[in-house]
């Protein structure tokens, strides 16, 4: 495209992922006294194993 750079598409796949919700991924504690993690910092662990996780 000439005017628009596509960074990422459909990073939230409603139909597929909602059905698979296992909630095994890390719990995102948002407290500043840890690392104020948010779901934006998480990965889906059924698709990608994190090397380590950090609260």
């Amino acid at each position, binding site marked *: 495209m000439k005017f628009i*750079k596509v*960074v990422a*598409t459909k990073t939230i796949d409603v139909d597929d992922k909602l059905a698979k919700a296992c909630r095994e991924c890390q719990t995102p504690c948002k407290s500043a006294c840890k690392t104020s993690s948010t*779901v934006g910092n998480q990965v*889906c662990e059924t698709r990608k194993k994190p090397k380590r996780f950090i609260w």
Partner: protein
Amino acid sequence: MLLDVPSGSIFSLDERVYHYLQVVLADPSMEGESVQRLTGLDAQTITEIEGELEQLVVAGCLFTQATQPTEDGSVLTLKSLCLNVAHECNFSCTYCFAHGGDYYGDTMLMTREVARAGIDFLVYESGVHHNVEVDFFGGEPLMNWDVIVDTMAYAWSAYPLKKWRFTLTTNGSLLRDDMFPVLEANDVSVVLSLDGDRRANDANRVFKDGRGTFDAIIERIRRFTRTRDEGGYFVRGTYARNTLAFAQSVRELHTLGFKYISMEPVVLSADSALALQTSDLPAIRAQYEELIAYFLSELGSGAGFDFFHFKLDLEAGPCLSKRIYGCGAGVEYMAVAPNGDVFPCHQFDGVQEYRMGNVLVSPVLNCPEVLAECAHANFLFAKEECGSCWARFYCSGGCLANNYATTGTLLKPYALGCLIQKERIEAALVVKAAESPEKNHD
């Protein structure tokens, strides 16, 4: 930047597209010469821009339908536990929410019995969950190292079918070399608190007698982090009103040799001299812009580092179900005080209104109304302000403890925290856009 919130599609825009969208979104009925006049673009350019936008709409990446999931608290079961093993600290940091570690009570260390009962409680409540998480917290948790070691050994031996994931949040002052192999053997992720170089750190992180802590901890933290070149730690700083130049602090931490860095805004009551104010937002934005430039510059020079809040995984992020529930406080995540009392999270430790039970008593949980309140408050769309926020699927609804501390209710977001959160997410998206190669929209 253009973010299609429901689908999570992200685009970086030419300035001409940005102006075009500004004009037509302000008045969707506008067309033809009016658009040309207000955008300053010629007809050919507008046609090309509209063609590109149309491609994205057809591909289902732009102007997608907003989703409104229904609330179902039954999906939330306990899987993370904070063991507050020490209501005591050898530091007296000026911004400490825990009142120098004693949580406004008597100093106390958790016993092995309480810690083991906490593990039993977590396993019982977590049911079929395979992954379970335990964070050793304080005060300064290394004041109770023997209990930490015993607890991890107990967890592995008593419940070998669970995948145990331990974290430790420490000020680093009591780290010893003989602890390193134990932390490694148990795969413990470590959060080390350090606010920057001596100037930034010692502004707020001080001993009980007021002396700065930097010189006492820097070599200990360095010795430990050298054993983790591939990750497994974050050096985590806090910025407050007197240390607002946090981009410089991150640069200092990187210069000190740390590769995994996080920097957090302090949360204090508005009347505190160190509390961030709404009037600080322009400065905070400028700091993120400075940090982005430094981060990308170091990345480009081959000396890159991890900044926690820039770690957005656009390829393998969490599912929508995860994104519509928050931190899990009081349902997926709870905290145990040294005396065994259970609270929704470590920041609620000692708030009797939110005491949920005690791990030494059966049944442990005896306050279903707090459980129900927390389950509801975790639902993203239960908070009016969150439902229409562009950052909702990255933030998932803010920190319940901060909400409670600043507004007196779990359901009313901490407004300044939201504004800072959005600055942070926007910065992360900008970094992702800069890192990203051009992609085909298909």
